[in-house]
């Protein structure tokens, strides 16, 4: 080997590197811990020694935090701690699944629009604009009516209304990646459109999408609350952080703790996801050190 070639040290294998890079990224680790913590709570909810989240007690309406009710009790005497833990399930699911739906629909469409351009692009772009200009509420109620009320349908509704942003974002990224030499190279060796989109364009447009996705998780968790209010999301009495906050707003003066816990949890999870997203973006990029 020649001088120029040996000047680069041999790194370890790539997967291991992604992982080690991720681990070295302190804020990503913090993010992973936060998200992991809440994820674990959600998973372990049935096993934890906590009160029944649905059990009401007329003698303990809106009790402030105390040894008996560590986080206090709610408007009909349920244990907020256990509702927080069970609510993590619905809220994390709402946040994650709807973003996944938005990405699974928006990214391919944006990819197609950006990659093929021309009429395909024009039509898709006009539709995207139209969807962006459409109020969320109308879409949500209509979809709810169409699909029937349930948590999973709420996720679909949230996901679909977050979709246009992903279409736009992806399209814009594709337009810039498309002009890279390696894409032309792929065409030159005779790869089909599908291969080029899947292996050349997609992986290179992912980073800003991850950032957008982590931001959308927050909006989705909160949107679930407004949808459950429309009868679309988590159905009472099953808890979700969003709906807990929604109820709490009527007791802000009398029982502030009802709002503080779910509020803090949403905040932490959002921070967690954003840190995680940043870390993931950096770790996935083989070029970043």
């Amino acid at each position, binding site marked *: 080997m020649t*001088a120029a070639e040996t000047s*680069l040290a041999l*790194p370890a*294998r790539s997967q291991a590197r992604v992982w080690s890079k991720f681990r070295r990224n302190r804020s990503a680790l913090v993010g992973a811990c936060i998200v992991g913590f809440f994820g674990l709570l959600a998973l372990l909810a049935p096993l934890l020694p906590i009160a029944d989240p649905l059990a009401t007690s007329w003698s303990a309406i809106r009790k402030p935090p105390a040894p008996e009710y560590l986080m206090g009790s709610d408007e009909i005497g349920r244990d907020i701690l256990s509702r927080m833990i069970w609510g993590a399930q619905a809220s994390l699911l709402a946040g994650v699944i709807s973003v996944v739906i938005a990405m699974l629909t928006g990214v391919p469409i944006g990819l197609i629009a950006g990659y093929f351009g021309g009429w395909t692009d024009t039509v898709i772009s006009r539709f995207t604009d139209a969807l962006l200009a459409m109020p969320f509420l109308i879409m949500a109620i209509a979809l709810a009516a169409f699909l029937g009320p349930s948590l999973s349908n709420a996720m679909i509704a949230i996901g679909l209304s977050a979709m246009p942003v992903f279409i736009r974002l992806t399209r814009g990224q594709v337009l810039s990646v498309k002009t890279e030499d390696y894409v*032309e190279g792929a*065409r030159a060796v*005779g790869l*089909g459109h599908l291969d080029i989109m899947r292996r050349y364009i997609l992986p290179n447009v992912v980073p800003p999408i991850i950032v957008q996705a982590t931001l959308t998780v927050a909006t989705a968790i909160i949107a679930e609350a407004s949808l459950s209010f429309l009868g679309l999301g988590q159905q009472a009495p099953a808890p979700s952080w969003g709906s807990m906050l929604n109820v709490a707003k009527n007791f802000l003066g009398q029982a502030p703790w009802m709002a503080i816990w779910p509020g803090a949890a949403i905040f932490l999870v959002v921070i967690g996801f954003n840190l995680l997203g940043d870390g993931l973006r950096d770790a996935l990029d*083989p070029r970043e*050190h």
Partner: protein
Amino acid sequence: MRRGADMTPSVLSVENLTTAFQTGDGWGEVVRNVSFTVKPGETVAIVGESGSGKSVTSLSIMRLLDPKRARVSGRVMLEGTDLLSLPESAMQQIRGNRVAMIFQEPMTSLNPAFTVGRQIGEVLARHTDLGKSQIRAEVLRLMERVRIPNAARRIDEYPHQFSGGMRQRVMIAMALASRPRLLIADEPTTALDVTIQGQILDLIKELQQETGMAVLFITHDMGVVAEIADRTVVMYRGDCVETGSTERIFAQAEHPYTRALLAAVPRLGSMVGQDHPLRFPRVEMDSGRVNALPPVLNPVDRQGTPVLSVRNLTTRFAVGSDLLGRPHGHVHAVENLSFDLWPGETLSLVGESGCGKSTTGRSILRLIEPQSGAIQLDGFDVRDLGGSDLRRMRRSAQMIFQDPFSSLNPRMTVGQTVAEPILKHGIAKGHQARAMAADLLAQVGLSPAMMDRYPHEFSGGQRQRVAIARVLGLGPKLIVADESVSALDVSVKAQVCNLLMDLQERLGIAYLFISHDMAVVERVSHRVAVMYLGEIVEIGPREAVFGNPQHPYTQKLIAAVPIPDPSRRGLRRAMAAEELKNPIRPRGYVAPRRDWQDLGRGHLVMNTA
């Protein structure tokens, strides 16, 4: 005057400069114990290959490295002050004032959001007490001084409205604004065409003579060094391996690396009397011994059918569009081009930036749709092919790009990259494909063990090899090499050229070799076509075009190539500052009829009007 000035105090004196960067695992030194001095009116060149630490040295002097990520030690004395121990605010008084700097990339080194006048004026506003109108007058004067035509009009234009050469002049004007004692020029001409490079070098020399400033000139081009530098510092992997007067370095270099570097430099005119393309000599790094390699002796049968035959190829790009979507005009990127290319032959396309070389290559492979013309490629009528035929055609003809950094997918391993076309064309499957990929990598001199690495873990030369390996898997008859070696270091450039020639000899591949580097072209080609504004102005056998250039443009091109020989310095002709023309024509423009004069043996020259 310069020789006698040895006793004068130096403007800049660098002692034991060491720079370390924070990396994943601790601090890594990339520049070690570099020492040199620059005297008033003197030009010192720092040469070395990519990554040898030239830029880091200059940035360390200017203290432009992020202090959190870089640690600089040693002493940098500027007329008696140690720059490394100054507080940042004092350093800001020095930057742009007593020391100015110009950078390699004229395209990206100017802020796209502000007019050039403002950007030049900023230096004056920062370092002088001039008022607004005085600044403007001074900027105008500076622009005229760096020979920007029409300065009064162009002062309010934006960088993107300037060609690369003109932008570099703007950079120089900016650097000269506050009459610095020292100018650091970090590869100021590398990104420019040869003709423009010649103009810029002339300009710097002239200005230096006028002002007596010292110049620290960073380059990897030995021709430029020979032309401009009084003394030369050779860097190798962060170390300064040799320092001395330029004449001595060229005549009797001590360090083997310097000798290797010099040996690898292609010299225009060195092919006189050679019938065949000639491999670059191999240099042994430890001893610096140079072993000449044999020429490429594969036969080219020009009686048989050409592998590629292009007739009247025209490609245009629409510019702008009005309300109805009609373009305002067209870039006539390729206009009425005709040539043939036979198996085992290398035809080089040369010409300045924007003359349509790449567009020609891309049109031939149908990566863009040409307007008109006929292309016969290995029996395919390229312009008529539909989907699946097009894909089959693509096995016969391949392309390698200029920029080794952007031509590989950063998120695919090299193994995947090389194996992919093999899999997609059904040439081999699974393990077999992987084995083939390994074999291909071995063919281009890479270890199969590198298959699981990502492109960024390779050097530029290695990446270019990967790109070659990738297209070889399809067994192409024609490879369009679009500036494939232009971005590489001399030694690596030599290796990659040799590789291409080896493959040609072994596999009979024909190359359409696109390049603006005349010296390399002379070395590797059988025939040469010179393009100017989308048209071929001269085409013929290599020895005819180089030995007996007929078209004025060809002559100018050849004359502009710097010659790596300090003793022949000063033979430069005064060249007028000019911008490259853009082949944009209004809607409805009809290209004039052209005719060519045949000088025999296929040497054709366009008749000038």
